[in-house]
């Protein structure tokens, strides 16, 4: 009964969202056009410079981002930032590629981490290093792991902004019911399996663990074992030519899932993160892995206490840590210099401890500027939501290495889809050896294809 009401509520809400979005789309566009033309005429008259900012933050994250933008716009009157939602990371990047270098290009844009190489190759961006040098801006105050990811050949191409890592969410109530300690999350693959069994034993209607068929999570589970995704040091010393993980590392995740399927403790939500989270919230599954950016949202909506822990690793090896996820901000070349400067100001603004603190608390993305953790808002929030801190701890306990710096390659989106298909195959009882072999073969083929296409 409760489920039914919840379902109808969600349905109505979704229809409303869909309706609003459709209705709002064109006026926003027009407004934007108008302000853009205004900006060009009026820069001399001390009218604000308009910065067009493309982003891929949907739903609750969009609201949080809009808040930052409005705050910035209200605080001064020289720059006006116009934030435009462009769909998912994939969609936004596709749009960018089709208009790169034209007048329709934005001033700055948010691109996910695996689009880094693709953006550099596009030739339509201005490395952020230009502005850092010109301003003598100090990047060293940023989180070390983030700097490691985004510093390529000793220079910054983009400005880190929203970074998250995967964490494991668990239902503390279910843990208590299963006789498990609700304050310690399972840390290894094997512990997760054991906990899952206990949970299913205690409540046959609840599954133990769910892994989304999402390439990013697979990459993270590899990195946590210290495995490279691509060879040539994850593409950091030279362009990758093939996958970088060993058979044991690559298969470990598949085998882990396979064991849980055998135990009948595994819940399969395919590739739908929304379904998985709603399944968790309605008590159909007790543990799952997802981006830390969901922490606040999940805790706010769960009718039970939610625990957040580090992502697991095979018990026979050391934990290596996680790779920076999320996205960074890119400056376009070929736009008006005033606009670039204005966008740079906005980027710097986003790095300030106060803003990062607000962002961290409001979303669950961690603060890329560690000073933010000293801010009162964060300290206050940790009192209420200690789970937020887990994400920071996990990042800070990461061992710096090529593995945890993350792979740099332009075809990673394709690689993700390949691993996702393999994960789904395993979820449905497919052969692990075959699934693994497909992953290796297909990713290698994609790497070679991409290298050839670049003429390398």
């Amino acid at each position, binding site marked *: 009964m409760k*489920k*039914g009401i*919840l*379902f109808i509520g*969600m*349905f109505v809400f*979704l*229809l409303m969202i*869909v309706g609003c979005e459709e209705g709002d789309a064109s006026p926003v566009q027009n407004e934007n056009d108008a302000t853009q033309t205004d900006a060009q005429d009026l820069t001399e008259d001390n009218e604000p410079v308009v910065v067009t900012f493309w982003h891929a933050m949907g739903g609750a994250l969009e609201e949080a981002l809009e808040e930052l933008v409005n705050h910035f716009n209200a605080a001064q009157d020289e720059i006006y930032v116009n934030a435009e939602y462009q769909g998912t990371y*994939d969609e936004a990047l*596709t749009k960018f*590629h*089709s208009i*790169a270098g034209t007048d329709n290009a934005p001033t700055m844009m948010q691109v996910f981490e695996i689009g880094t190489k*693709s953006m550099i*190759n*596009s030739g*339509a961006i201005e490395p952020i290093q230009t502005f850092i040098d010109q301003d003598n801006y100090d990047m060293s105050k940023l989180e070390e792991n983030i700097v490691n990811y985004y510093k390529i050949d000793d220079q910054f191409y983009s400005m880190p902004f929203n970074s998250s890592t995967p964490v494991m969410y668990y239902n503390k109530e279910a843990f208590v019911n299963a006789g498990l300690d609700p304050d310690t999350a399972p840390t290894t693959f094997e512990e997760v399996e054991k906990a899952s069994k206990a949970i299913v034993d205690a409540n046959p209607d609840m599954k133990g663990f769910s892994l989304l*068929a999402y390439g990013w999570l697979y990459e993270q589970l590899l990195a946590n074992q210290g495995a490279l995704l691509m060879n040539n040091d994850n593409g950091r010393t030279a362009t990758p030519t093939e996958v970088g993980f060993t058979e044991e590392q690559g298969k470990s995740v598949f085998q882990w899932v396979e064991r849980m399927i055998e135990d009948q403790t595994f819940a*399969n*939500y*395919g*590739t*739908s993160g929304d*379904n998985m989270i*709603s*399944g968790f919230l*309605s008590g*159909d599954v007790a543990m799952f892995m997802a981006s830390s950016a969901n922490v606040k949202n999940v805790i706010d909506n769960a009718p039970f206490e939610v625990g957040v822990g580090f992502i697991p690793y095979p018990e026979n090896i050391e934990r290596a840590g996680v790779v920076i996820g999320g996205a960074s901000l890119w400056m376009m070349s070929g736009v008006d210099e005033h606009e670039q400067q204005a966008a740079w100001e906005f980027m710097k603004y986003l790095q300030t401890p106060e803003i990062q603190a607000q962002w961290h608390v409001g979303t669950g993305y961690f603060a890329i500027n560690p000073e933010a953790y000293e801010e009162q808002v964060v300290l206050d929030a940790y009192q209420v939501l200690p789970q937020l801190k887990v994400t920071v701890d996990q990042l800070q306990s990461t061992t710096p290495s090529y593995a945890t710096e993350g792979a740099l390659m*332009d*075809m990673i*989106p*394709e690689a993700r*889809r390949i691993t*996702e*298909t393999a994960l*789904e*195959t395993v*979820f*449905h009882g*497919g052969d692990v050896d075959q699934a693994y072999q497909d992953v290796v073969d*297909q990713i290698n083929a*994609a790497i070679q*294809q991409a290298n*050839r*296409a*670049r*003429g390398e």
Partner: protein
Amino acid sequence: MNQLAIPHDHLETLELKNTLKKQKILRWLKGMLFLAPSIILFSIFLFYPLARSIYLSFFLTNNTGVPTVFVGFENYINIFTSPIFRNSLQSTFLFVLYTVPGAIIISLFLAIIANEKLKGIGFFRTMFSSTMGISVAAASVFWMFLFHPTMGWLNQILSYVGVDAIGWLTDPKWALLSVSISTIWMNIGFTFLILLGGLQSIDRYLYESADIDGAGYFYQLRRITLPMLSPTLFFVITVALINAFQTFGQIDMLTRGGPQNQTNLLVYSIYREAFMNYQYGPASAQAIVLFIIILIITLIQFKLGERKVHYQ
């Protein structure tokens, strides 16, 4: 007199020939003038992209779609040796096989019962054709909820009956079928409306005459309704086939090609290859393959149709 008349005559025929020629050119120009808008539009939106796709299909491209390396037929060879593309072809054909006959048979049934003159039939006609007014996006959202693994109505109904939940969109065995079901639902409105229109244009005297001749309901259905409806059916089948091959929206919304690429239909595969993997070359090759498949099927259909369809 006579001698004078001959050259004069000759002159006249020459003049006549010239005028006729001029008129011919003028007529041709006039014709071209009327054709110009469609020729221009087709060239910009159809012929140029087609030529460009063919060109691109022989290249590898960088991420922005600029051709970099000429590879000849390699893209074609690659896609046909790729298990993913072959799987995608198979899924597409299965999808067509499920949705086209499914939608047409259900719509035909609905159209036939809605064609009866009954009180309040207008309400049912409106209901049956209502899905036409629902966009693919809205319909997909609606079905997404129905298919939800735990909270979806379908699985809740199953659990009341005591059947295990089905992973409608997550189980590779079910996903294509689920997407097909929602597609059939979406297509029923349009197909129903066209078929109903076709039914209503059948002369009612034919049925009255058959009534008097003593033909039963099903005999009339088989011998009058279906043959008389064949032009409409042919149109509907052609449109449905082409639409089914070009399905994209509901795939993008419901499954994104998954699980295990089971619903990775051709158009979605092209989209994915071009706009997610930035492999415009192979994507163009797939697009050309799709174009050829649709072309062949349509040609076959017209050849068969000529024999089976009765135009009035």
